[in-house]
């Protein structure tokens, strides 16, 4: 196990592994997402209050979930990179940030479109919405800091510290609807049966979340390949790879 972990951290080995498994995650995510959308848009019944409008949930909730999940991935990788000086770990953070920023933006945009008809406004400065906006700025700040230095290693270390500092925002976003009065409603728990939502509505949502996770797996592998090539551009194995193709 430890040997395998060491092997995984070696850029050439990782590059070839990613080349092989990324397409699998990609196609799988497409199938799972199509199944989730079919379940959410056709099979699920309309909501008693919101009618068909609630169906935007099948994009909004997985996006919001991914925005938090990717941040945790990014921060843990940043910590590993800082402590163990693992080259690949910093690359993981750098590859995850643009994906996380995109999902955060998607969560904010779909939430805004959902808010207008249901709440009566596109945006309010309540704790949930504001903390999610801060998350977007943390991602953008990470990206800016990562590219702000001539030397990639300096950029990696500086932005890793920002990623670690920002991790406190993750529980704040999650618990904001419990700690404060917010316009955003409280959580509807999906793991395990609950009376708040029938299975015909939450099963498609669960499938969509899995689909989004697979999508993330496929695209972080592809992005990591690019990161690894860029970071290792002066090494022999990259030259060999380029010459071969």
């Amino acid at each position, binding site marked *: 196990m430890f040997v395998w972990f060491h092997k995984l951290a070696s850029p050439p080995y990782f590059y070839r592994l990613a080349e092989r498994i990324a397409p699998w995650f990609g196609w799988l995510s497409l199938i799972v997402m199509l199944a989730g959308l079919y379940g959410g848009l056709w099979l699920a*019944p*309309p*909501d*008693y*209050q*919101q009618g068909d409008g*609630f169906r935007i*949930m099948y994009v909004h909730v997985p996006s919001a979930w991914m925005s938090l999940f990717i941040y945790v991935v990014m921060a843990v990788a940043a*910590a590993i990179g*800082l*402590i*163990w000086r693992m080259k690949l770990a910093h690359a993981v953070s750098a590859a995850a940030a643009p994906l996380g920023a995109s999902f955060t933006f998607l969560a904010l945009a779909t939430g805004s479109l959902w808010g207008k*008809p*249901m*709440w*009566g*406004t596109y945006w*309010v*400065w*309540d*704790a949930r919405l504001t903390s999610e906006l801060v998350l977007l700025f943390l991602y953008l700040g990470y990206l800016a800091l990562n590219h702000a230095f001539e030397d990639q290693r300096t950029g990696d270390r500086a932005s890793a*510290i920002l990623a*670690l*500092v920002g*991790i*406190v925002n993750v529980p*704040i976003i999650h618990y904001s609807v419990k700690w*404060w*009065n*917010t*316009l955003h*409603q*409280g*959580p*509807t728990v999906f793991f395990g049966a609950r009376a*708040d*939502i*029938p299975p*015909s*509505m939450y099963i498609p949502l669960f499938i969509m979340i899995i689909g989004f996770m697979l999508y993330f797996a496929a695209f972080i592998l592809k992005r990591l390949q690019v990161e690894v090539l860029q970071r290792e551009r002066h090494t022999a194995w990259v030259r060999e790879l380029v010459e071969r193709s």
Partner: protein
Amino acid sequence: MTPARRRRLIVVAVIVVGVAIAVALGLQAFRKNLLYYFTPAQVAAGNAHVGQSFRMGGLVAMGSVVRTPGSMTVHFTVTDMQKSIPVVYTGILPDLFRQGQGIVVSGTLGKNGVFVADQVLAKHDAKYMPPEVEAAIKKAQMQQRQTASLAKDPP
């Protein structure tokens, strides 16, 4: 673990814990300002200032909605089951506005105790269900009430 790694691990842990404590203290200090709205009970207790703009959240009291004919003015009462505050609003209401619905109104509290709203936002709960289920629940509640009233005063 080598001493260098151990040292870096401690530095990372100190950064995360330190920032977490700082943020927790900060949020604690601004606790009141982070409330998106006051409840009618808090307003009745004098937590909100008369004449100053603030937000109030609660349920639209059953049977309290009165529309003024020929205008867009609506009178209703917002309640949190402890206190109720009368509200007047002129404008377009959100789709989800109805009796028993959770809403957030923003505006000012007049000296006469009536809240003059300039914005009404609907707050929806974390419940989702098909319309048939809602109809079934309502029907069951109705029947229960009927049997209860029948049991109270038999014909």
